[in-house]
């Protein structure tokens, strides 16, 4: 369960995020949509305590994220390439994350085996450092790394961007599977309305930092969103 109260983030005069109240129950697949500058990445950065809120707070499973670090063991994320260690090979990177999250090599290998399809033979055993992989392949590695160590909350910022169509479809499958288990809360942001309506049971629309729509996904949702963003 994630609760957000009176959360604002302000840079000088401009308010980039202002969420009065938001609750995300455990196991929900939660989609965040909005145009550039709507505050999606700001919200995720606040959730990960990478920036400080101006007012208000976020509680992740009862842990106030800017006061305690106890949320870290059960939360994982892939925001952008700053979550990758460029000079490691993908394997080394996965093991590194694994070790930090209390997983041994066999655990990580086990998990990776399940993603052989997703990797499409382009990640493992490539004799390349992460910094030399293409943007799309870097993203694949980062997304899979966020699944290591059985996290209860997974935050993915724009996971579909830069991925090829096959991988996008596979990623949708993976996220749906995670959501179906009802154990993992998945937070996804996207510019792609079709993808996000397909994988998320709830969609929140941000506009200029404010929460303007909160929709339980149904057949009409895509249409509703298209009207909103088209108008």
């Amino acid at each position, binding site marked *: 369960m994630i609760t957000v109260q009176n959360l604002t983030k302000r840079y000088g005069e401009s308010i980039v995020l202002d969420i009065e109240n938001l609750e995300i129950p455990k196991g929900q697949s939660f989609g965040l949509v909005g145009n550039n500058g709507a505050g999606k990445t700001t919200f995720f950065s606040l959730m*990960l305590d*990478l920036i400080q809120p101006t007012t208000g707070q976020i509680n992740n499973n009862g842990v106030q994220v800017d006061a305690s670090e106890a949320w*870290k*063991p059960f939360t994982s994320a892939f925001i952008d390439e700053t979550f990758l*260690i*460029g*000079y490691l*090979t993908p394997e*080394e990177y996965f093991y590194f994350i694994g070790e930090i999250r209390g997983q041994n090599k066999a655990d990580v290998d086990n998990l990776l085996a399940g993603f052989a399809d997703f990797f499409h033979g382009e990640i493992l055993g490539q004799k390349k450092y992460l910094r030399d992989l293409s943007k799309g392949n870097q993203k694949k590695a980062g997304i899979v790394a966020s699944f290591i160590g059985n996290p209860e909350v997974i935050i993915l910022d724009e996971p579909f961007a830069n991925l090829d169509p096959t991988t996008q479809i596979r990623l949708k499958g993976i996220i749906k599977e995670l959501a179906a288990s009802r154990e993992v809360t998945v937070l996804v942001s996207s510019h792609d309305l079709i993808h996000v309506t397909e994988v998320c049971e709830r969609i929140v629309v941000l506009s200029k930092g404010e929460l303007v729509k909160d929709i339980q996904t149904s057949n009409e949702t895509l249409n509703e969103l298209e009207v909103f963003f088209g108008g």
Partner: protein
Amino acid sequence: MLKHFLTLEWKSFFRSASFKANLAIKIFMIFGALYFMAVFLGLGIGAFYIIERQGWGDPLQVVNRFMIYYLVGDLYIRYMLQKMPITNIKPLLYLPINKSKVVAYSLGKTVVSFFNWSHAFFYVPFSIVLLIEGYSPIGVIGWHLGIMALFYCNNFINVLVNNKDSVFYSLLGVVLILVICQYYELFNITVYTSPFFNVLYELPWVALLTWGLLISLASSAFFYFKRHMYLDAGLAGKKSLAKTEDYAWLNRFGNLGTFLKNDIKLIRRNKRSKTSVIMSFFFIFYGLLFFTGGIEAYDGPIWKIFAGIFISGGFLFSFGQFVPSWDSSYYPLMMSQNIRYREYLSSKWYLIIIATVLSTILASFYIYFGWDAYLAVIVGAIYNVGVNSYLVLWGGAYIKTPIDLTSNKKAFGDKQAFNTKTLLLTLPKLILPMGVYALGHYLISPTAGYIFVAMAGIIGFGFRNKVFAMIESIYKKEKYKTLAAYKQKS
């Protein structure tokens, strides 16, 4: 067209993040630049008279004798530091501009670089002095133009061999062997090379040959880049073959081992960190300036401690100073993972300690200058382990300069690394141990001075847990500022 290029250049210079340093630092930098210009100018004017007075022979011939090393040294420095011109022409590739123009412009840019014109501060005054002292004007002009062409040749050689490490390091090895041979008078390369430089003076038209060489090098560089101006050829970054490495023997250290593994990979696989390690190796020889009595100003007894701290602390200063900036490119990852600062810092601390001990062992050749010299190194090492290792980690929390691991730019100092807090922290790093030593040395005896400094180190070592807790809290407090600073890539 040139106008467009020049405005782009102008903007990229004045809008770069590092240029927006504060005024005090800018003034400091200007004074630094003026100082070096003055030194070179003085050297240019003074070299002639110094050589003459010392009776080493004809000044021009002496300069010519060492010219080969000067040229090779210049090439070495260029290879390490000079930025290749090709890096920022990508956005120009698809625009309606002639390829030849783009290449000519980027090569032309290297011609006006600091690495070329800085030598003029030596050569121009030196040549003028030669003229005043009655050397043949035509000869001097020939020599001057010839040497100038050779430095520009270096410029294009560097452009051509850039990133060809194997060529470069084997060349470096050959030069090192030649230097050693010359030192022990086995074989003297300068005997064979100096006549060439002398010929430039005696037969000025030979300078034309060097200009011919320059033109052919420049045009081959030009055609090389024109032919290879594709993203997957000349413009491609060097990709090394990666090997997954395990370092399983470090697993026994638990979480600390995880970080150590990562840090070892960090150092081994990135250009910038490798340079730091190489630099710290050269620090070991820094003491030669002190213990050989080569420089009079360093003869006072307390300077021995100064030397001792630098000899064993090369890695501490060149690497430790930039913790946590080494991890700047993935700091958000580190901050959102279940990482305890204690373990993260401990790993860096152990690296510093290991390097300090290694440097101390490597520095054992100072025994040659007497046990007293090596004792200073050991005492310096104890102080480095016990006090300075904390101080660099502490200071690192305030530096906040993102490091581009893949480039060597700024490896030799960074404007942003100078701020009042880090400057204040250098006081206890260097001045305090010298003061402590002076206290013991002048009040009791030199041995007491050593004991005092070593004691300070041992006491510092004892407070390890307390100090780490304090540094941890500072890192935590600075976390958001550090994250924001790393986001602004220069």
